[in-house]
């Protein structure tokens, strides 16, 4: 099956340092992929390129077989969820935040739908009325997941999503990621978290010296 999100020969240099040196990465529908590797090695940059926030110096990115350069960037971003490691919260309540994506596309999201989304992301319904900017890091992360869910994206990119979550919340999030893949979305997770690697069946990659290296099955990756 062709990959929904297909990166070919991505290159990126930053301040003379080669972060991506011809990276090929195909994310097929319904699959989970994890990316590890040394910190500062370009994993976040790779996610930001796949999320169209950063332009690669070279290479090509295809969405469903179409070069994204021929598509309208904001329309592509709506289809690809990017959850940052420390996601920014907009001023207002959790409900305002969860509604922000649909609102940008002039669609309304009713409160009961928003409540379902935050519960699915692992937050209690009581959070809906809280000031989003006053939440803890782990809570903000879950609001960001709910906010992205509201757009029903076709693909998911997450950057160290469990860094601020305890074991229980991590299991809930891993469960959600498996569900999303089960619904047919490709899921890419940048993570070092042993708990995630243990619980989440996935294709395991490492970004080392600008190249993605595949781990042999069964080999320990943490």
């Amino acid at each position: 099956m062709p990959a929904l999100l297909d990166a070919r020969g991505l290159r990126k240099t930053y301040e003379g340092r080669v972060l991506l040196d011809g990276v090929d990465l195909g994310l097929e529908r319904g699959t989970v992929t994890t990316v590890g590797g040394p910190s500062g090695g370009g994993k976040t940059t790779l996610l930001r390129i796949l999320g169209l926030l950063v332009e690669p110096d070279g290479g090509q990115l295809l969405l469903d077989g179409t070069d994204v350069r021929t598509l309208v960037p904001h329309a592509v971003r709506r289809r690809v969820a990017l959850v940052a490691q420390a996601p920014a919260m907009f001023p207002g309540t959790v409900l305002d935040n969860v509604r922000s994506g649909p609102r940008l596309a002039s669609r309304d999201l009713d409160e009961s739908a928003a409540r379902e989304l935050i519960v699915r992301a692992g937050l209690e319904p009581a959070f809906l009325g809280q000031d989003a900017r006053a939440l803890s890091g782990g809570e903000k992360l879950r609001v960001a997941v709910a906010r992205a869910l509201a757009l029903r994206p076709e693909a998911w990119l997450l950057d160290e999503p469990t860094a601020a979550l305890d074991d229980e919340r991590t299991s809930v999030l891993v469960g959600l990621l498996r569900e999303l893949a089960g619904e047919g979305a490709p899921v890419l997770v940048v993570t070092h978290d042993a708990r995630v690697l243990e619980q989440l069946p996935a294709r395991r990659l490492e970004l080392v010296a600008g190249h993605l290296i595949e781990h042999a099955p069964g080999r320990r990756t943490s």
Partner: protein
Amino acid sequence: MSYVSVSLPQLLLSLGLMAIALAVSAQSRLGLEKDLLLGTVRAAVQLFAVGLLLTLVFRNQHPASVFGVIAVMVAVGGWTAARRIAHGPGTWVLFRYATLAVLVGGVVVLVPVFAFVIRPPLWYEARLLIPISGMILSNAMNGVALVFERVFASIHQDAPGVEQLLSLGATPKQAVDRHVRAAMNAALRPTINGLLTVGLVALPGMMTGQIVSGTAPDQAVRYQLVIMYQLVAVASVAGALAARFARRLSFSDREQLRTFADRRVG
């Protein structure tokens, strides 16, 4: 009524005022003496130079010289507005946009007023066109400078928030809407405050000048009102244009937030 002239010896007497300021600075050890002396000399040199230039332009009134002076005002205004903008693309890039914003704001506000409201006897009447254009263009310059400074600084400060909006499918316009509106508000605020307090706190310079030189107060007031409305209009037009330019400069053609000093890697 006739106007009261100031002779050169009388002008020299007024230097005594600067002596008072110097004495205060020395007495209180403010360390401002050097700047005060420099300022005394520079103010005199600059104003006499402008006076000389204006005398020349007034004496040989010609469209080319009048509009030459106004063109210099526009360019200097653009340059001043583009300088020292932190987190922006740099003075040289901004200069073109700032100059265009000042120029368009000036044309939109000045041409109709000279054509329909003030109606100078000669269409290039230097003693009307030059001082009034100067006031209007300098307000345009201040508005543009404020918008540039605010837009670039607040986008820089809230870059993660702007990129988060982009990630959710926002257009560049949607992603910085909040920042642009706040900047325009800040740019218009001083001029609007001027409207609200004029006459209560201080008499405006032009009105004072006209009254001192013998114009009837009711006429001076009418002139001043026209100017005040022009100041608001020019700040709006030039500020709105500057905001549009700043927004366009903040994103690449792939709708990515430009990083004038790159932020995150890793």
